[in-house]
């Protein structure tokens, strides 16, 4: 056989093998993903003890055969799955994304699921249900429920002789004075932040405190340049400017050991700031001896308010195993499942001699049961904080479902960062954001 023919034959064989391998891999992946009777879940890979103990109960409820690839929900992965026709049966994602997918027809309304499985929607917190309701139809079942309180480092308060009553957003002048009193700037560097307004992340909370919902209840009208929102942003900027300005402020904040034992509370690097409830759990584990106080965030009228966010379950259009998906959602978020997971966590923490601060869920009935049946005292500081977290839940609001939630969030987030960076005034930034957000909503609805 002449040399050229040999080489041609070998190379052709390699190419053919490559094609066959590719085809076999594709066929294998395709057949796995559409295996009958399997519940394919996207966004809920192997998690912590709370996730896994509930998943075990839900797996039993759907009769086994649950496929949960690792990793959290990712728009790219989901869209690739939709494009290839391998739609998962169930997705676990941020509640704020549900409205957009619902408006685009990518998720199924859960009306028949709720009816057939007799899911009691009243057990879920209303603000969370609102987040997953688009045009009066429910598209998701709420799961976790993040709430925000003001976390105070008592040691900083004591050292600076700052009255705790000043840490109240209802009294902006006093809060500003408290921030100035607690901040420490040495040699041009911030070495302690007095009060961190947590911008841009908590802009919706500040706008609400000043009296405006940045998005209408139907999710179709942005109120970003409402004078009250502009005032809220200007005030938070004044807080930051009074503490060294954004450059110094953020440079220092970026150095915090947020999840470690040398965290900003343990090292007295911050006086107070609004924060999600899960951070009490972090503190209880990493530095249980810190002296903290939790305060409700209040609006200008002095009423408590809480900006809530969290996760949800939803069924994509084109899902094959909707019955099992519905069973899974119901089981995962039921009171008995949450309670079992909480008891398991409490036992695990006790066994490892670690404090347990409870679980904050989207199910108000479950929360009451969890606190009553599983919570045991840690110390007076954490006990009071946990009580405050439970108490603030009834004052919750969320961002309503919107057909352009991603664009809406990008619009206000970018506006706040432009103000923080000194590129625009609050009014200029929010005027631009209003235009961008409303155009996006109009195009998507």
């Amino acid at each position: 056989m002449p040399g050229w023919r040999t080489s041609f034959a070998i190379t052709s064989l390699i190419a053919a093998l490559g094609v066959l391998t590719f085809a076999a891999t594709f066929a294998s992946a395709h057949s796995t993903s559409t295996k009958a009777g399997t519940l394919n879940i996207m966004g809920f890979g192997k998690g912590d003890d709370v996730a896994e103990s509930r998943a075990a109960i839900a797996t039993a409820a759907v009769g086994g055969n649950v496929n949960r690839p690792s990793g959290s929900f990712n728009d790219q992965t989901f869209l690739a799955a939709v494009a290839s026709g391998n739609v998962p049966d169930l997705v676990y994602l941020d509640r704020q994304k549900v409205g957009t997918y619902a408006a685009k027809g990518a998720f199924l309304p859960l009306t028949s699921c709720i009816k057939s499985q007799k899911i009691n929607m009243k057990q879920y917190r209303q603000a969370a249900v609102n987040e997953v309701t688009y045009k009066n139809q429910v598209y998701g079942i709420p799961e976790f429920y993040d709430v925000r309180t003001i976390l105070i480092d008592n040691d900083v308060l004591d050292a600076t002789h700052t009255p705790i009553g000043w840490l109240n957003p209802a009294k902006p002048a006093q809060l500003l004075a408290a921030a100035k009193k607690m901040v420490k700037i040495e040699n041009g560097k911030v070495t302690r932040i007095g009060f961190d307004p947590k911008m841009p992340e908590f802009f919706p909370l500040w706008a609400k405190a000043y009296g405006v919902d940045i998005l209408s209840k139907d999710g179709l009208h942005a109120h970003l340049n409402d004078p009250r929102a502009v005032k809220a942003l200007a005030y938070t900027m004044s807080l930051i400017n009074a503490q060294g300005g954004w450059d110094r402020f953020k440079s220092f904040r970026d150095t915090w050991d947020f999840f470690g034992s040398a965290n900003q509370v343990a090292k007295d690097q911050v006086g107070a700031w609004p924060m999600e409830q899960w951070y009490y759990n972090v503190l209880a584990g990493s530095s249980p001896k810190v002296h903290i106080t939790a305060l409700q965030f209040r609006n200008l009228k002095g009423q408590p308010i809480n900006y809530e966010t969290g996760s949800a379950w939803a069924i994509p259009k084109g899902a094959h195993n909707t019955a099992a998906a519905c069973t899974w959602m119901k089981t995962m978020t039921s009171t008995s499942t949450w309670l079992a997971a909480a008891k398991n966590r409490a036992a695990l923490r006790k066994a490892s001699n670690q404090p347990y601060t409870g679980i904050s869920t989207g199910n108000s009935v479950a929360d009451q049961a969890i606190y009553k049946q599983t919570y045991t005292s840690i110390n007076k500081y954490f006990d009071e904080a946990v009580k405050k977290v439970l108490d603030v839940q009834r004052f919750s609001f969320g961002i309503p479902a919107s057909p352009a939630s991603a664009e809406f969030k990008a619009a206000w987030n970018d506006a706040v960062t432009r103000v923080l960076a000194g590129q625009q005034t609050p009014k200029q930034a929010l005027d631009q954001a209003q235009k961008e957000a409303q155009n996006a909503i109009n195009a998507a609805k």
Partner: protein
Amino acid sequence: MANVATTVPGPLARARHWGAGFRSRDTWAAFAFLSPWLFGFVVFTAGPMIASLVLSFTDYSIIQTTHGVGFANYTTLYHDPQVRTALRNTFVFTLLAVPAHVIIALALASVLARVGRAAGFFRTVFYLPVMTPGVAIGILYLLIFNGSYGVLNTGLGYIGITGPFWTTDPNWVKPGLVLMISVWSVGASVVIFLAALVGVPRHLYEAASMDGAPAWRRFKDVTLPMISPAIFFVVIINTISGLQTFDQVYTAFFNQSTPYGTNASLMYAIYIFQEAFTFFKFGYASALAWLLFGIIGVITAIQIVVSRRFVYYEGNSRG
């Protein structure tokens, strides 16, 4: 001159010559060896490119019905202020990053070329950062370039310089990114330059020295021309890479946990990603991607034309 003109084959003759090549067994063997790559190129590169060109004339969003929109996406991008911002940032970044990268890499390679036995060790040391994922570089950037507590400003402080707030001041964000990204990835180019430097014939330096050329003249008139193909390669690759900058900047400024990106840090590839995977405007993102492809094509073509004047290839009659 007339004689020269008659020796150049016409297009027909060239086509005939090209076609004759297919009668040769070697040509078929070459294509057989190339076939796996050709298959991969068609399926994974050319195919998706053609698909994206088609999509750029639609409102494709994957999850909704697709409609043809003609040139609407291209008209939109022409009027989109964010496109201008992102392009300006990307051009400024590339214009600063490529020369900085080439100069630093060449300087390091020149030093390494003089190192004797330990050259291999240093080559490895300089190359190691190249293996760092872009995401890690983005996080490191925030730590090293922290305005108050970063290593860089602390170092500058020792010599009496007050460093800027690299990560928060819009005027300093791009210079900071240039320093971080171009210096961090310099190892690959150092290896290329080192290979080129070692290949420069010694007798050329000896001849220049005998003619009394000082070190700078030897570098300018011997080294640079002889390693110009390597410089050209590094410039082309880094220009393309600069225009496509994404992961480091995205991690530092546009990640969910670092939502502090401003107009100063918005790179064009990030804007494409946001339009596609955050806002689901795949048709528009495809048009944006084709604009970038066109820009890279034009810039590369200009660089190739300009290189004919400056790049010296041994054995090439044009040289």
